């Protein structure tokens, strides 16, 4: 099957493992690319740094973006995604521990498509990932359109 990737931007290895587990539990088979900080995420999206020369790759289906990240924080990553012609319509879901109004408002203000607070209860977390997967991987039409064969 020819599917778009999911870009998970997450610096915490525990949260990374739990998110991957939650995705697997719902039979989400898209390849998940993990970026461990904001700079890595931007390199992946813009084909720079470690990802240079791979610039013509397909954009991911959705970006799951943590806010508190080393080097370049999540809101700045989002700002740069929205400022770039190629990625400005890319679906971005903020997936974070924070439920500060400030973050939520700023996240939406910068053009986040969703804002999901990571619950502590793993069952709730799985449920949240399930809803995310259902919406962003199945129902939502990617701005670049459907892929042939998918």
């Amino acid at each position, binding site marked *: 099957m020819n599917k778009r990737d999911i870009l998970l931007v997450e610096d915490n290895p525990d949260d990374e493992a739990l998110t991957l587990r939650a995705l697997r539990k719902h039979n989400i088979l898209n390849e998940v690319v993990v970026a461990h900080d904001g700079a890595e995420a931007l390199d992946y999206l813009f084909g720079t740094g470690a990802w240079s020369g791979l610039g013509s790759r397909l954009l991911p289906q959705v970006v799951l973006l943590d806010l508190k990240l080393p080097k370049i924080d999540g809101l700045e990553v989002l700002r740069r995604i929205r400022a770039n012609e190629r990625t400005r319509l890319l679906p971005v879901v903020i997936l974070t521990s924070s439920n500060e109004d400030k973050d939520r408002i700023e996240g939406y203000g910068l053009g986040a498509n969703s804002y999901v607070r990571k619950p502590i209860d*793993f069952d709730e977390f799985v449920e949240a990932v399930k809803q995310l997967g259902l919406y962003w991987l199945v129902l939502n039409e990617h701005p670049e359109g459907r892929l042939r064969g998918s």
Partner: protein
Amino acid sequence: MNGPDPTAEFDLTMVGADMGSVQIGSKLRWQKEELFQHLFEQAPDAILVVDSTGIILFANTQAEKWFGYAMSELIGLSVDVLVPDTHRGMHRKLRENYQSAPRPRPMGPGLDLHVRRKDGFDLPVEISLSPLDTRSGLLVTVIIRDVSDRRAAENHIRELNASLEQRTADLEAINHELEAFSYSVSHDLRAPLRAVDGFSQALMEDYADNLDATAQDYLSRIRAGTQRMGRLIDDLLNLSRIIRADMAPPERVDLSALAETLIAEMRRHEPGRKVEFKVQPGLCVEGDAHLLQVALENLLGNAWKFTSRKESARIEFGADDGADTRTFCIRDNGAGFDMAYSGKLFGAFQRLHGASEFQGTGVGLATVKRIIARHGGRIWAEGAVDQGATFHFTLKECRGQS
């Protein structure tokens, strides 16, 4: 006055003065002169009379005292000498201009004036000028008031203001740090909890066959613990948010209607509970609607929770009559509390019941107290073990009935 008298040759008769009224009986005239002399000498301000070239003709005792010159030195001295040297040139010009258009100038704040004493020290002063047109030319009466005390007081106020500003800035910085702190708590404290809960769940799912009932019980205790800590963190964050939140402009809040809605919600959540709820209709206050809802939610939530072991639970919401501020009360017939511990009731993380008896994090009443205090009200409680509890609080009643 001692020393040479430069006024001797002056005819001080005012131009245009009615000579008839001046030439009165000599005794009376003598008394009048003495009276004026007395007034002149005893005036609390320094008084100088200067001629058109700025030479001092008369000075009173106060001037002698303040300027530190002997009377014999003052008389005949140019008034410019009494001006601090930084302003002396300008003063000469101002004085010459004044000669061409003399008019009375009253004292008043706004001008930062100083005089130079003989010892070189500058005194802050206010000065009034009044021209006196005599047959020997224009004389000017200069009244000088020492405002050192007032200036010192003003400086003191300025210093107090500055220190107040500094303190405000410090508080703002602390507030800012607190915000960063609670942000960090919100984010960083929850992440490890998620890991503990998530991997416990993963163990239960993936290794259920290798875990006996005891092991599974332990794992569910671990999960319950993390979830409880998660609630604690959330409650703590909510409390800090309420402390930090800006108050919305006061609006009319119908507490009775709000209470009905909240109880209806609790009934929906626990349809098995039988609770008699009595509310006095039309109780309305002025305040921040969101914060007041949080307060009422906590108080009614407590009443709901602590009556859960009663066969026939009863919760009442009402008010006592008062003038402008009204005392409201929420009464229940639940588990109550020992008045000996009533002081602990409103402290954060203080609980009077064990977790096995009643669930809770001990932040609710601390939150309520903050909200009532931010509305300028008071809250206190009465109760007895197994006799129920009553929470009284005061809020500003809204004006006019709707």
